[in-house]
């Protein structure tokens, strides 16, 4: 069996940037938000890598990314993301970031998915992050699934495998550092991913250039979306904790844990 995987993913400011909330009761934002470099939301990125992995194993599977973000930013981010694996893009040009309303975002995404002419629910796997790195509400994917009438919903997924009979074995994170394994008869299903277990695929400009042939037209015809703002903000501030940033990549988890423990002990 092959699948139609749709990955919902937004953008987040590069985490190394200075993130300074600019308070406004109706439209709070980050200082110079649109000047900051952005990345594909890390949670959604895990979902995307898992989608690519599954697509490789299941020939005929298509991967499509639905993204609601400022179009120009999305285009910049695609210069990296599109190099990771083959996919198509459905772009929605609208506000991103942490201050948009989960309900409105979910409505826009669901509408875009529902209006795909070739949508095949019998093969549909709806992927996304279990929360976004910006809003962190952990509510969008369930709402999208509900609007699309997908009742099989899995949250904080770390692993998906397909059994011989075509059923899906899904490992979800639950409390206490444990996993729950569920068997789902088959699509349609929604999987909101935690980290999964795949590393970030390396950049491959050749893949990117092949992707851009369909991504660019998609960006050009991105539908403009305005989100109804229902929330009122009383306060927007950085966490009071002092932010100490150190850039490390590929340091073993044990090493990081040791360092953190030492820091806490101090």
């Amino acid at each position, binding site marked *: 069996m092959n699948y139609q995987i749709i990955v919902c993913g937004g953008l987040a400011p590069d985490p190394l940037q200075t993130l300074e909330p600019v308070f406004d009761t109706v439209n709070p934002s980050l200082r110079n938000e649109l*000047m900051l470099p952005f990345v594909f939301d890390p949670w959604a990125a895990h979902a995307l890598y898992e989608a690519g992995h599954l697509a490789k194993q299941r020939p005929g599977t298509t991967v499509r990314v639905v993204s609601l973000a400022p179009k120009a930013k999305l285009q910049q981010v695609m210069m990296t993301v599109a190099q990771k694996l083959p996919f198509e893009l459905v772009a929605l040009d609208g506000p991103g970031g942490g201050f948009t309303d989960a309900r409105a975002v979910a409505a826009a995404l669901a509408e875009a998915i529902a209006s795909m002419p070739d949508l095949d629910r019998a093969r549909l796997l709806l992927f996304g992050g279990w929360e976004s790195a910006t809003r962190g509400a952990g509510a969008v994917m369930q709402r999208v699934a509900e609007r699309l009438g997908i009742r099989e919903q899995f949250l904080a997924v770390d692993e998906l495998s397909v059994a011989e009979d075509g059923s899906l074995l899904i490992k979800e994170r639950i409390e206490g550092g444990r996993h729950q394994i569920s068997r789902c008869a088959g699509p349609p299903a929604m999987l909101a991913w935690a980290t999964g277990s795949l590393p970030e695929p390396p950049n491959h400009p050749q893949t990117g250039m092949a992707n851009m042939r369909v991504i660019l037209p998609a960006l050009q015809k991105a539908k403009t979306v305005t989100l109804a703002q229902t929330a009122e903000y009383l306060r927007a501030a950085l966490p009071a904790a002092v932010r100490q940033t150190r850039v490390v990549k590929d340091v073993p988890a044990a090493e990081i844990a040791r360092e953190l423990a030492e820091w806490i002990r101090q």
Partner: protein
Amino acid sequence: MSASTTAPRREHLPALPGDDVRQVLWRFADRYDLQMLVQSVRAVARGPVARLVAQGGRHTHDWTPEKHALLKEFDAAGITAAYLEPEEGGFLEGPKNLALALIAFELAWVDAGAATCSLATHLGLAPIHERGTPEQRRHYMSLAAPAPGREPKRAAFALTEPIPYVGVETGLLGGKVRIAEWPEGGEPILEVSKRGRFITNMAFANFVTAAVDSADPRIKGSCMVILEEDDPGIFDRGTPTRKLVHQLSATNDPVFQLRVPASRIVGGYTVQDGVIVPNYDHSAIIEAVFRRTRVTVGLMTSAKLLSAIEPLIRYHRDRFRGAEAVPPGSPRYELGLQQKEDVTHRLIDIWAAGEASASLGFAAARLFDELDPVEREKDRMLAEQGVRGPLAAHKAMRKRQHEAIEFIEMQGHNQALRNEERYQQLAADPVIRYLVLDAQANVLCPATKLWNTGHGSVMMREAVSLMGGYGITEDCPGFLGYKWMDSQLEATYEGPEAVQRRQLSVTMTNEVFLAQFRNWIHEMRQIASVEPGTGACTLASAMHLWLWTLEHLQHARDAQGQKLYQTSRHGVTFPMADALCWLLASRCQILDVENLRREGPGRIQQGFEGTVQFLTDLCHVQAARAAGEVARICSEIVYGYLRHPSWDDSPQCSTCFEEVELRQIESVVPGASGFTSEVYREDGAHDTKAGPCVRAPGLNDFARLRAKLDGCLAGALLAKDRAAESVQKVMIPAALDYPQ
């Protein structure tokens, strides 16, 4: 009055210019292939390369497994294949100069040795790429392509030889080629002996393109040959060079004594009267290769200057945070060392130089992208006309030079006033287009190599000093100390500064170039009339002064009656070459910012005004600095070769007034003494100075231009003040995006 002097309230730079701004400035906003390449290379640079540097990978000149592992990263990220055509295993269509320039820029942002390592493979292939036969190109370029399950074959370029042979003087070849065997009716087998010095990639290269001279009457002149590691004979990689810089590249002194078929002569050969005549001598190949690869080297130093900005701002701002006596919110806490004007002003100098050098380098890279197809088209046309061989081609081109100048002059005219039909006819002619672009490229390439690396290394030192003691430690954020040291190699390899100056001193006097230069003066004045804040007017005046000086020098003589502008007179020609570089860099910077002003609004989502205004101020700062350099250099040369008049020179002294006499005149006509020349006292003695002040009536025009230029500096330091204020306010990321 200039906008810089009226200083209306302007917006500040909100955040450091991001990719969107750079893409417009350096004109690849519509090149998605290049934007992806940039992201891909950046991930390698700020990931594995930076980690290796941070872990001390640079502490040895040996080629370690860790360093070797970077090659695989380059392969995976598309860096190795970027030079290749799609049919050879590459992925970029069309000319690749800008692509290679961007690769060098991104890698050198973190470590220029890594950039050298990646580019040396391209350098080794370049002789084959530029001048190889179709078979050589197909074979070796495809071998160099990474493919699944197979490591690509890697190349090295061996020109430099142990002393006393090839260095700056590339003609002094010690490497030799002889005929070992020439079977009847078969292909000759060559015996090649070559020792190399400082050959990059030699620790692992699978094949080498080597420059050798004939030591056999049956081979004519010099050539380049391709040597493979498993050719019969000695392929000794030699000892590693004990270098202090670019440690992420491999450098060795190899020895080759190999037998190879004559088909390895780069570009092929013909047999004439029993003599092998290579189609290209080594100089012709080297020229074709270096004129492209030198641009990328220049951009390495630019990347370092621009990469220094963020760590410097962070260091300065955070300098006093945490001290008990410095409470949060106090100016000292918020601004740290940025409270000190000198700190922000010097940073602006570094930044402006970085922008100008990047603009110059990328302009040169784009120019070669434009030139490459035109050159092929020109070659095709000449071949159709039966013009064969480099000499005949040169002659044919010279004949058309006046038409190229005619075309350039028409470009400078108002469209309504020129003969449009003739103009279009010339514009469509590949030979004319080639002559125009080639004249520019012959100047822009050495200018990039010379100025970006030479002045760049001076500014890198400035960056190191702004980081205080940290600057010269391994812990310096952004590896600034390493970058400073490394920049000296960029100034040296692929032709040290003397070579670039020598080339410029010839190419900058080409009338086809000078005709364009005249148009550029006009172009700067036009920009200045709309955007005076760019400093374009200052630059135009400096360009005018330089041009006047160059023309003057063509016929001027020194005090001994010797011609001033001649090849061997480096004291004249070399500084003039330096001066030109300042002008070109500043011009490119202004053109880039003007492009941003035009194209940016639709593409830059936020902070456009502040960004453009800040970059405009940097242009002004740089233009003023360039003007100052040019004025200094020109004045020194114009006056420096005149003999200083002395009190003993009777003709001069005969015009001196006696002091008493002057007092009497002054009593009748107050102020008249101000118009007199020198004075001698009652005892016959003169003022204590070298002699009468110099008066050179023939140089009045120069003096006028110089005085005008000095006045043009108005507003430049106001621009610097504004830019410095922006530096205090600009938002920077919380941490550098690569380890230290």
